[in-house]
């Protein structure tokens, strides 16, 4: 385990294992310093045991608040004001780091550009974010429209096409990653089967929650603009 980002990920994972989920930035500052004092300790303040005695919050904040790897690769997500939690990809990555002690084999998924782009959007969508944070009641029809790529005036055929397309893309991704973690591009955001399950669950929940709207659209015969 070499990088600061990997160490922070493991510290965050161990916090979650202790039941601190979500955790605050300050929780992570302290946990990271306890676990890796040489990396996350405040320089210049060593104790009798030669260990750095205080945590360096800037070191952690710089990693989690910017576009550093832990955020860029989708391992950590912000769930509130200075509150964070690991994504499933982050947890899996941390497990592998802790067991093997070396860089886990997260490979490029090899998806087509269109499917990859669609999956990225779905994974980052507001609907998925709300479902992941147990806020299904806050999901609106507007969120569903963005998720599916429709509008309130879409025709039945357009809606069906979009729904089939999402289900097809999820199936393609599932086959491509074969249960492993994968990225959209080299060093990019990582995702796994559990993330795909979350998108599929969101899709099904939206179909159920907006059944009335879906039925109205399905009854339309004319072609309208999506």
């Amino acid at each position, binding site marked *: 385990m070499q990088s600061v980002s990997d160490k922070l990920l493991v510290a965050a994972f161990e916090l979650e294992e202790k039941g601190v989920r979500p955790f605050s930035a300050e929780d992570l500052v302290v946990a990271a310093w306890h676990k890796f004092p040489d990396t996350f300790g405040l320089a210049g303040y060593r104790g009798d045991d030669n260990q750095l005695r205080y945590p360096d919050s800037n070191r952690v904040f710089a990693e989690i608040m910017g576009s550093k790897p832990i955020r860029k690769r989708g391992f950590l997500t912000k769930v509130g004001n200075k509150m964070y939690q690991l994504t499933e990809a982050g947890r899996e990555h941390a497990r592998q780091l802790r067991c093997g002690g070396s860089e886990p084999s997260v490979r490029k998924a090899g998806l087509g550009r269109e499917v990859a782009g669609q999956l990225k959007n779905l994974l980052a969508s*507001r609907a998925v974010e709300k479902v992941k944070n147990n806020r299904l009641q*806050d999901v*609106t*029809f*507007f*969120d569903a429209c963005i998720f599916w790529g429709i509008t*309130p*005036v879409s025709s039945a055929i357009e809606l069906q096409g979009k729904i089939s397309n999402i289900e097809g893309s999820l199936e393609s991704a599932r086959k491509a990653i074969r249960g492993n973690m994968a990225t959209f591009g080299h060093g990019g955001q990582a995702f796994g089967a559990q993330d795909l399950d979350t998108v599929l669950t969101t899709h099904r929940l939206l179909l159920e929650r907006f059944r*009335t*709207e*879906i039925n*109205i*659209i399905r009854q*339309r015969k004319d072609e309208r*603009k999506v």
Partner: protein
Amino acid sequence: MVLVSGEFGRDPDTKEPVYFSGDDPPVWQRAQDADRNIWWINSAAPLARLYLDTGKGYGFESREWRMYHLERYIDIIVQIALRYGPSERESLSASEWILQWGAKVAEIQPAAAADLTEFIATGELPKV
């Protein structure tokens, strides 16, 4: 038909109030509204909420709300014009969409400025 959501307007058929969320756009339609040409100005949108807040010196009768209402009205007209205009079948890039949106707003704003100055000042609609 343009209505204001929440306590300010009701669905003309069900007579029920319609509520949107602060996460929804400032102007929005449900699927059932699209077929009836009904548009809603979302009173839960953050700026709408501000301008409808009597405690902050605004409210439904305030000049600020009338200006906000008028701007959202223009948004709706532009959305309708773009949705049903000549380019409705084209798949536009973001840049093309911005240009078309700008052109439509530029077309509509002079008329609004000329005809609705009195409405903004007093709330009285011009006689037609």
